[in-house]
């Protein structure tokens, strides 16, 4: 039964993906600015012939519907075209960058959860105490600071002044690492490279904190309120009445049930983290997908923008689906 539902959801995702493809395609073409113009820069001479030639190379001389058809049929074959600016297949460019982005998202998620769980639980248990107020205020700092500013401040404090952590990049410049999967932490473990593991972990800290600060705030908030709700519920009261210790009441009963809405939020945050990190990537020189797509938007690199947005949309739809599936496991009463 569940499998049928999942399949149904998968089918429902298809029109969404097609819609996303059409929207991003039209959006890019309607945005003022000519990719060929941007490519040629200022120096040297550009002849009309050269511009004509580039146009036809990029298929920009074809009517719009033909270009759209080329793009959609390409997608069906798994071909996202070639980047205008980088003269390489879009799929390859995205595949190179995706591990960096996912690694950072996981790091941020880990940081976010590590901060959110203690804060959320303690705040709920001690509702309206000073601890509750202060820790929630602390958590909210994470969504109150513009991420680029937080990132630069962290760099100046922890890298330039204290010299505890590296400023930028994914790994030390002179650290050698054989890439297997593109996930540097994983690759270091796989190849048994201790130096690379330490270096890549150290490089991961500040970007993860910067990106994860918002996650911490959002998750702590949801966890607190769902814990509150559960703590007032009948079964926790019952557990208490039965003589269960306060710890057991909180840990076994309230937390367990509070996890259900929390998982939903965490799942949605995965999508947000993957798609919202271009700022952090730019600040920390992190060679991920976000920076690639922002540059591509400014360069009007149509195929690259289209490809990247498709990947984002896919990730988001998938994350949603996984959350829904998880949900039914956590709470068997709910049907998909």
């Amino acid at each position, binding site marked *: 039964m569940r499998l049928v539902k999942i399949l149904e959801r998968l089918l429902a995702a298809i029109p969404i993906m097609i819609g996303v493809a059409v929207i991003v395609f039209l959006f890019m073409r309607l945005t003022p600015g000519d990719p060929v113009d941007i490519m040629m820069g200022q120096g040297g001479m550009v002849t009309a012939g050269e511009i004509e030639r580039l146009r036809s190379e990029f298929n920009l001389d074809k009517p719009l519907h033909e270009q759209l058809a080329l793009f959609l049929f390409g997608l069906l074959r798994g071909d996202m075209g070639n980047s205008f600016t980088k003269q390489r297949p879009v799929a390859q460019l995205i595949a190179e960058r995706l591990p960096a982005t996912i690694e950072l998202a996981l790091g941020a998620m880990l940081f976010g959860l590590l901060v959110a769980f203690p804060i959320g639980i303690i705040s709920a248990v001690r509702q309206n105490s000073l601890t509750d107020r202060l820790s929630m205020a602390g958590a909210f700092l994470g*969504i109150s600071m513009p991420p680029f500013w937080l990132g630069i401040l962290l760099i100046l404090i922890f890298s330039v002044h204290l010299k505890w952590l590296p400023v930028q990049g994914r790994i030390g410049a002179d650290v050698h690492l054989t890439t297997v999967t593109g996930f540097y932490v994983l690759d270091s473990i796989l190849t048994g490279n201790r130096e690379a593991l330490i270096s890549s972990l150290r490089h991961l800290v500040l970007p993860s904190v910067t990106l994860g600060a918002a996650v911490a705030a959002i998750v702590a908030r949801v966890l607190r309120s769902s814990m509150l709700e559960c703590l007032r519920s009948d079964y926790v009261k019952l557990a208490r009445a039965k003589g269960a210790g306060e710890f057991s009441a909180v840990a076994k009963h309230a937390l367990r049930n509070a996890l259900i809405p929390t998982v939903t939020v965490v799942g949605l945050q995965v999508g947000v983290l993957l798609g919202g990190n271009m700022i952090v990537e730019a600040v920390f020189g992190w060679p991920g997908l976000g920076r690639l797509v922002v540059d591509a938007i400014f360069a009007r690199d149509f195929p690259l923008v289209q490809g990247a947005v498709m990947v984002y949309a896919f990730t988001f739809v998938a994350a949603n689906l996984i959350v829904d599936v998880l949900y039914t496991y956590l709470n068997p009463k709910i049907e998909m």
Partner: protein
Amino acid sequence: MATTTATESIPSWRYTWGVRWRLWRQNSLEFWRELRKHPVSVAGGVVVLLYVLAAIFAEQITWHSPELGNLRNRLMPPAFMAGGSWEFPLGTDAQGRDIYTRIVFGARISLLVGVLSVGVSMVVGVALGALAGYRRGRIDSLISRFADLLLAFPFLIFAIGMMAFLGPGFVNLILALTFKGWVEFFRLARGDMIAEGTREYVEAARITGQKDWQIVVSEMLPNILPTIFVLTTLRIGFMIVTEASLSFLGLGIQPPTPAWGSMVADGRNHLLNAWWVSTMPGVAIVALVLAINLFGEGLRDVLDPRLKIE
């Protein structure tokens, strides 16, 4: 019985709203009593109020031009530092403009960005959500599909694309933030409307022959407003921070209009030799967004009956 027309059994509008008003007054008294138990939230509310006042009376409480500077006064430190003067209480920026003045005028822009983008999003989102959640059927699935579609775009990428499409500027910024911002409200309103739709009072209203729009507007909407309101406070903070992020990418508000985001973004290269240029507006953002969020969290504790202390 059968001769009783529908109109007779419906209490007059005047009467309904009279009752409503008394209830509201009673509720709001209780509301304030509850809210007083959340001093941090009240403090947040007060801070927000101060910002609003500063924004309204910007001309009266500053003594420099927010837009024009004199290069000869550039990068002066704040008054409390050596070399600073009360002429420029929080120092000056690279163009020689008074940072205090710009922060005060910037409150106007940032509050407007937050309130307008969220306000429009809320109105559109709640209206569509109410329509979809109440009517269900084809119109529901149509709007929901479109919402799902927009939701699949990452917010910032979408905003960047929109800003590239529209060009930088205040109105365009609001449009870019709103175009996807309404979806959150839509989803919340729709979900709540569906839940409310199953409750007895809606059925009762239908039996008494109220029109659909009357049921939605006067019976159901008041019940879902508290949660909407909480979401509103959260989104305002989010939009203000997003404006800053867009400024960092060069897609913010047109210069020389003082907007906090672009002030922080501009000043970041001075963090090492003139930290105040970026830090002062940064603190202004953090204080406001934090205050809004804390206020919102308090509201939530008070308004959401499930979280009440017994």
